């Protein structure tokens, strides 16, 4: 394989100025969620590191993550895949197709063994030996394992790849699951979301590409810089929550005034994502801002936690738990009251019996 360019070399080849290059690096630094002090490190990496090879495979999913990815604006997704990484294989974005395309995948895996970044979208369909998700004549599980074996790092894009996605909702007929159990002891970055935020997708792949290592991860393998906060704690509607101002339905005055959507089932208090910070599509909006409660799409198992329009106490398999609890409390109170009455009766009978036996005894004494 030919020598690969660094990012700086690619800029020069296209006649772009040093100034443009530095500006690009500054933009990259911020979109990776790093502090401005890291700019020099980013520049250094962009000058010296060859563009990393990326293999991007798709499993059991809707490709909505790609739809999100191509809308990344800073940097442009096109910029990223054409200039910042060497994207060798991608079901959706590659120009090639058919047998030569599949052959190219094998060649890439062999040529860059141990060096390439593997980006995975979609769940693994496990039932029926994986026949529910095949591409190029192979079950996805097989392709995943082959590609994962030689990967330097693996990025799981979307809630499907992280924890199974909507197709794994009960009763899960295809046995779909996240990729975590099928890739052995490989480093993996989980980037959940249905889909993830565009800039988060590009930010994570750029971090791995530039620094050659994974970004700092939390206990669930998610990059801390993007999944370190609850939506609820970063929400611009939070002051309404604190003040007790809630929309009670989707069309009431509170809803029109932009009050908190907590009572409409917002999952913000349980969901970790950057929606509240960087928002979507160049900061244009995010679900809560558009008046739709968060459904917690970055949470494992969010698909089984419906209906999305309910929270506790109404939410849950048993129904309104406060009504059930109050009912049980009343029943318990009635129960102990009845027990009390019976106890009084029992005692009076016991005392009567005792008095009787005393009398009998007394009679004997005489």
């Amino acid at each position, binding site marked *: 394989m030919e020598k690969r360019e660094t990012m700086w070399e690619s800029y020069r080849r296209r006649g772009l100025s040093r100034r443009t290059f530095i500006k690009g690096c500054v933009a990259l630094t911020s979109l990776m969620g790093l502090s401005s002090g890291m700019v020099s490190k980013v520049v250094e990496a962009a000058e010296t590191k060859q563009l990393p090879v990326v293999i991007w495979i798709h499993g059991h999913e809707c490709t909505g993550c790609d739809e999100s990815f191509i809308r990344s604006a800073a940097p442009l997704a096109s910029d990223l895949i054409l200039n910042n990484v060497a994207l060798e294989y991608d079901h959706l974005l590659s120009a090639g197709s058919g047998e030569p395309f599949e052959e190219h995948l094998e060649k890439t895996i062999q040529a860059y063994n141990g060096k390439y970044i593997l980006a995975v979208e979609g769940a693994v369909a496990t039932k029926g030996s994986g026949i529910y998700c095949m591409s190029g004549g192979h079950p996805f599980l097989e392709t995943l394992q082959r590609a994962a074996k030689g990967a330097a790092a693996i990025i799981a894009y979307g809630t499907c790849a992280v924890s199974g996605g909507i197709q794994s909702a009960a009763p899960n007929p295809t046995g779909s699951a996240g990729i975590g159990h099928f890739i052995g002891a490989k480093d993996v970055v989980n980037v959940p979301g249905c889909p993830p935020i565009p800039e988060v997708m590009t930010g994570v792949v750029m971090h791995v590409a530039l620094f050659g290592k994974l970004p700092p991860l939390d206990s669930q393998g998610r990059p801390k810089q993007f999944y370190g906060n609850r939506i609820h704690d970063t929400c611009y509607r939070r002051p309404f929550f604190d003040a007790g101002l809630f929309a009670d339905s989707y069309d009431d005055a509170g809803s029109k005034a932009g009050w908190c959507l907590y009572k409409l089932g917002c999952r913000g208090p349980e969901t970790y994502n950057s929606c509240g910070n960087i928002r979507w599509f160049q900061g244009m909006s995010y679900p809560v801002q558009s008046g739709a409660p968060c459904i917690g799409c970055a949470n494992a198992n969010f698909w089984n936690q419906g209906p999305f329009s309910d929270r506790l106490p109404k939410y849950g398999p048993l129904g309104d738990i406060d009504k059930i609890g109050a009912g049980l409390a009343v029943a318990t109170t009635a129960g102990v009251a009845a027990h009390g009455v019976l106890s009084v009766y029992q005692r009076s009978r*016991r005392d009567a019996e005792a008095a009787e036996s005393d009398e009998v005894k007394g009679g004997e004494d005489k």
Partner: protein
Amino acid sequence: MKKVQREIFYVFSPFLRVFHWIMVASIIILFVTGLLITKPAGILATEPTATSMSVDLIRNIHFTVAYIFLAAFILKVYGFIINKGDRLFPHFWRGYFYAQTVDVALHYMFLRNEHASYLRNPLARSSYVLLYVLVAIEFFTGFAMYLMTEPDAFSTQLFAWVNVVLGGEMITHYVHHYVAWFIILFAIGHIYMVIRAEFMEGESEVSSMFAGTKILAHHPLDEDDVDPDELDNADRLKRWTNVGEGISKIRNVGGN
């Protein structure tokens, strides 16, 4: 009136008693504020500047009381260390414990006229263990939710596993909420049972949580579970406790 001889047992240290009443207040406040956090009451005022109901304030009350409850537990621990009567465990490891439990349960089911006398009967002992398990669940799930505002903090690492074990923070929320209701159900049963024991069986369940002593007409089977040294204390108590008609406070009921 029939003369009944009673004897005094010093059971609960002041530390346990103070803790108990802090726990009572805490549980009531935590339960009410908890329900209001889950389902904030509707507000009457529609002007944001005139809100009558601050969820922020209610949450802060909930968190503050939770910390007070937790801090008060140190009293329970101290009493546990210094006083034998604060350690009335269920003796699961003793064979007779089960026979006694059956005896008490049969009485409560009206299948026996009475059960043997105890300082704390085996069924009650088990039920308090259950209460502490429920409180522990609230403690762990509560902090797992509360601290996750700072997922990186050290204190969070002590509790974050709860969310993983339960399968997501959403589940943590509803375990916390469901268990709160179980504690209320426990409280109803508990209040009934202690009142019943106090006024129907003369077991001074209610008064002992104020005074620390039990004045019993029957010799309790689990007498060895309290510290005999504390009996001096009880003797002192005898002097200033008014002896009611027909009740003489005698340490030894032997020969009766």
